[in-house]
């Protein structure tokens, strides 16, 4: 009996060794995204990795390490600088300069197929290329479209959608005249509680012919177009056509859901959030409409696009880079973008073949976002201090809401941002 037990144990031990050897043949790639820390997004983001593993049984994607959005960047920068970050990470385009500053990103171009790279728009590849190295894989883009409340527009006597920026402002005033607690056009400003709100004014700036930076790369918020834009924004706030300081995007979604906002721009994925704040969701969807943000003299103006990247850190061994490249190509391919589309995430690809394959047959709302992609502009995120500049724009909006002189405020704002950029 003892001998039998000894043989069984020996066989079990040998078996486990063989299993370990087999497991070692399987490559494991660590991958992280803040979305993996959000329960309702796991089916989409985790599901994408699961789909990859199902199609590539020789590779395991370990997506167990994730941090919520609020602490994600800090944690990832710390881990990357210490050389123990997951091999692949999901980042936003505006964070790229910080990782470049750390010097922790791998050049992925040698590992990607030419077919995939050439499938991308030239602008998408150029945005992720630094000193001739492709330091990030453009994954998807979030673009913005203008939500509107059909019921409020009808009450305000607006029977045709605005075709230009000036018409939009005119209609916003008509809507806000419906009541003290009704806003015509909402622009978020949580006073810095939430990040990334300053650049939300760019569609207004572009509609006035302005630019964040001029051809020489100098900050140009205090020129004629900038002053005209911010004078208009100040007037909207002072006239109570737009909410004053204290409303984040989340607040605006609630207000829109409650039927208190005529127009504001937001992402496709946030429509259900706004609907959740409505007393009657069916009625919300009946009243809901969206259109491309109008420009100076065109209905097809420009919203902005927030590009999301997948980056590979230097701690990833070169030996497994072919497998990592397979993962990157798969994630930016049609199957994963289809998963995002089915999950109503509103993510669009910069790859022509993916857009053609996935977005052939779409809903009326998605069609607007696809159309918005055609004119959407990338954020000018190249500077290390872009996010600091964003905070300065938010501060300027708060000062404008307090009634300060537009030229003085914008000159201060421009000087401060320029000094930050000059420090780099």
């Amino acid at each position, binding site marked *: 009996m003892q001998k039998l037990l000894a043989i069984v144990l020996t066989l079990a031990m040998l078996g486990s060794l063989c299993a370990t050897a087999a497991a070692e043949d399987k490559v494991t790639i660590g991958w992280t995204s803040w979305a993996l820390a959000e329960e309702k997004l796991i089916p989409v983001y985790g599901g994408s990795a699961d789909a990859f593993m199902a199609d590539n049984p020789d590779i395991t994607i370990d997506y167990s390490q994730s941090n919520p959005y609020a602490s994600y960047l*800090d944690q990832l*920068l710390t881990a990357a*600088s210490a050389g123990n970050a997951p091999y692949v990470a999901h980042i936003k385009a505006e964070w790229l300069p*910080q990782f470049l*500053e*750390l*010097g*922790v990103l791998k050049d992925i171009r040698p590992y990607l197929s030419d077919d995939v790279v050439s499938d991308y728009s030239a602008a998408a590849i150029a945005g992720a290329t630094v000193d001739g190295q492709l330091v990030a894989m453009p994954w998807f883009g979030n673009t913005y479209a203008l939500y509107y409340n059909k019921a409020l527009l009808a009450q305000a006597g607006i029977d045709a959608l605005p075709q230009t920026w000036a018409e939009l402002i005119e209609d916003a005033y008509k809507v806000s005249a419906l009541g*003290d*607690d009704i806003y015509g056009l909402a622009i978020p400003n*949580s*006073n*810095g*509680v*939430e990040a990334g709100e300053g650049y939300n004014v760019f569609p207004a700036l572009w509609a006035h012919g302005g630019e964040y930076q001029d051809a020489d790369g100098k900050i140009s918020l205090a020129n004629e177009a900038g002053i005209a834009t911010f004078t208009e924004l100040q007037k909207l706030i002072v006239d*109570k056509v737009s*909410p*004053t*300081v*204290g*409303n984040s995007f989340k*607040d605006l979604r*609630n*207000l829109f859901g409650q039927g*208190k906002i005529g127009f504001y721009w937001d992402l496709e994925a946030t429509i259900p959030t706004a609907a959740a704040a409505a007393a009657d969701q069916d009625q919300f969807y009946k009243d809901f409409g969206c259109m491309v943000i109008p420009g100076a003299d065109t209905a097809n103006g420009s919203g902005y696009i927030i590009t999301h990247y997948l980056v590979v850190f230097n701690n990833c061994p070169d030996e497994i880079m072919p497998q990592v490249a397979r993962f990157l190509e798969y994630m930016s391919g049609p199957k994963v973008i289809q998963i995002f589309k089915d999950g109503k995430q509103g993510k669009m690809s910069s790859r022509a073949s993916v857009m053609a394959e996935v977005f052939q047959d779409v809903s009326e709302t998605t069609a607007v976002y696809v159309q918005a992609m055609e004119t959407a502009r990338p954020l000018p995120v190249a500077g*290390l*201090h872009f*996010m*600091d500049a964003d*905070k300065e724009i*938010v*501060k300027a909006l*708060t*000062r404008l*809401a*307090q009634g300060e002189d537009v030229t003085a405020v914008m000159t201060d704002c421009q000087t*401060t941002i320029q000094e930050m950029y000059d420090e780099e």
Partner: protein
Amino acid sequence: MEAKRAKVVNRLTPRQQSDSWFGFALVVPALLVLLIVIALPILKGIYVSFFSYKLKNVGGALFNLSPDQLASIFRGDADLSSLSNLKWNDLANYISLFKRGEVLHYFRNTLVFVAFTVSIQLVLGMVIALLLNSKIRACGLYRGFMLIPWTIPSVVVAILWRWMLHQDFGVINYIAYALGISQQVNVSWQVSDGLAMASIVLASVWRQLPYMMVMLLAGLQSVDGSLEEASRIDGANGWNTFTHVILPSIRPVLFTSVWIAVMNNFQSYTIIANMNGTGASTMTLSIAAYQEAFKSYNFGKGAAIGVMWLVLLFMVTLVTNRMNERCANDYQ
């Protein structure tokens, strides 16, 4: 002769000396821990505040020493300035803070916030403590209720008050409008500097009031009843008894409570950041230091704010201690 005698009296016996060494040895581990977790980080903070210390410097340690460099240090022929991956920047961190007047703005906001928060909670805490110290019915129940805000995490308090004061959803705006205090229903508590500061003071006082109340109540309960009785017999009214008997009796508790409250509020971050974010009107030293160091990743400038903050607190501590000593002497 006296000196010689004193010398003889003060000399420790071998047993006492051994005990003394043993006692010191027992304290050493604690001292080492304090040195590592408190003294070294403070020294490093002061050190990096004089250098350009940004993300690109984080990749390596503060001093990256190769074996060759280490050997050259021991030989005494090393160029010490080349050993650090930090670059001396001619006090640029401090200059930039003063150049734009930023630091004065942060100091002013911090002092206003601390002064209002501590004084309001002191006055209210004293009133409530006096009420709870009197023989009122269901005193224990009230005391229990009063403690509730203290048990709520700061971040929850911040979000709670942010919603209550929200421009469009806030119950306080609604009540103010319904009572005719405000002429408009959607007042933004963040657009005006005064209202923004008032909102964070309000939330902080609400959160910290139970602490002050409990401390003062403990002090009041230790006051000798015969002193109060004697003052009444001598014809003192309630106010005189309070100012001349009760306050001096609880002075040590009062000083300690106020001092702890001042320190806590100087470091206050959670409520301010979650209510008003990086709004200029409520940008205190703690918010500014965090923003610079961990949002803009300018660790040198963040450390410079921290150093000035340290100096301010050090000076306030000296003044307070001196005042406390003087008052203690007056009382004796």
